């Protein structure tokens, strides 16, 4: 799928711009562009639920990031063990990408998934639950424990934010 590969190259360019720019506002905008590209990629991969969710979550993530970075720039300096750090990082990332080539040959090729468990959900999902959106019937009927775990994680994250930003503290 040629358009999908162009889209992922666009996302990679957006990510590289986001982490290399010295201006904070430009890097936040670049992350936003990368997220919108991901939402388009979900549409090409025939997943409309995920495209809607990724779009609105991306907007909210931009609002929260802008709140933290407005009017706070940081000067750039390269002190310390800079050369050793850079070479070790590049060697590690090069080994990671080289070894991933051998792993990716073992996966089923792009376009033919092994659907051993999903055959049951596709054939019997509409008869057993009478819901026409199969993804919703999976997350709320067949696999509802995962949704319970997700609700717990969201609750914990909200409580965590409330605990971190309250006013009690000593200077």
């Amino acid at each position, binding site marked *: 799928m040629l358009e999908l590969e162009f889209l992922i190259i666009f996302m990679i360019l957006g990510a590289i711009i986001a982490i290399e720019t010295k201006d904070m506002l430009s890097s936040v905008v670049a992350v936003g562009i990368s997220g919108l590209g991901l939402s388009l990629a979900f549409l090409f991969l025939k997943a*409309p*639920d995920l495209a*809607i*969710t990724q779009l*609105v*979550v991306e*907007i*909210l993530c931009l*609002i*929260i990031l802008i*709140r*933290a970075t407005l009017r706070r720039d940081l000067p750039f300096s390269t002190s310390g063990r800079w050369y050793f750090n850079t070479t070790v990082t590049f060697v590690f990332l090069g080994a990671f990408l080289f070894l991933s080539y051998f792993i990716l040959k073992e996966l089923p090729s792009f376009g033919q998934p092994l659907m051993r468990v999903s055959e049951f959900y596709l054939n019997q999902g*509409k008869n057993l*639950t*009478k*819901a*026409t*959106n199969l*993804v*919703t*019937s999976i*997350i*709320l*009927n067949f696999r*509802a*424990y995962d*949704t*319970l775990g997700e*609700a717990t994680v*969201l*609750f914990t*994250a*909200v409580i965590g*934010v*409330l605990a971190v*930003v*309250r*006013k*009690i503290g*000593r*200077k």
Partner: protein
Amino acid sequence: MAGSKEVEWGDIWHNPLGGKERKMLEQKNNNTSEQKNKNTLEQTESKGMSLIVKTITRLTVGLILLYGIYIVLHGHISPGGGFAGGVIIALSFIHLMLAFGKEEVLKRFSSEYITFFEGLGATLFLGIAILGFLAGYFFLDFFVDKGAPFNLFSAGNIPLYNIAIGIKVSSGLFAIFVFLVLLRVIKDKDKQ
């Protein structure tokens, strides 16, 4: 007036600016004209955006809320569901808060109501799940007649779960935004 005194935990809940801080803020705003010039940036920021933005917000925020509720309720027929609809409802409240300023909106929605609704959503989700204990299962789908496939009232428990998740996600994300914003107002006043 160093910022090292401790404030009680109750202040941030009932009164977003705190009783003592509000009095000190008013005293400082009435003091000198130089301080008035310094404070105008925060004052105009907290009073919201320009008139065009406020007028458009009044027209469209109700439609955004309605669209979010539509996506939550039709989660079993069309793409969407509880999570996407919950985030859209939270975005409509955040839109209101960005356009009209912090104090105007926080006078109407206090922090107690937002956290109450979040707890209500989580409890509702768990409550519907535990009701299956009456028959010996957890997460039992207790509608025997599930209706025809493309109707609104069909698919058993799924619309009820979608509503609970919608309430929980929307109030949780709005609470995160309110508390991240509230910290800034008090911090800038402490630095002077």
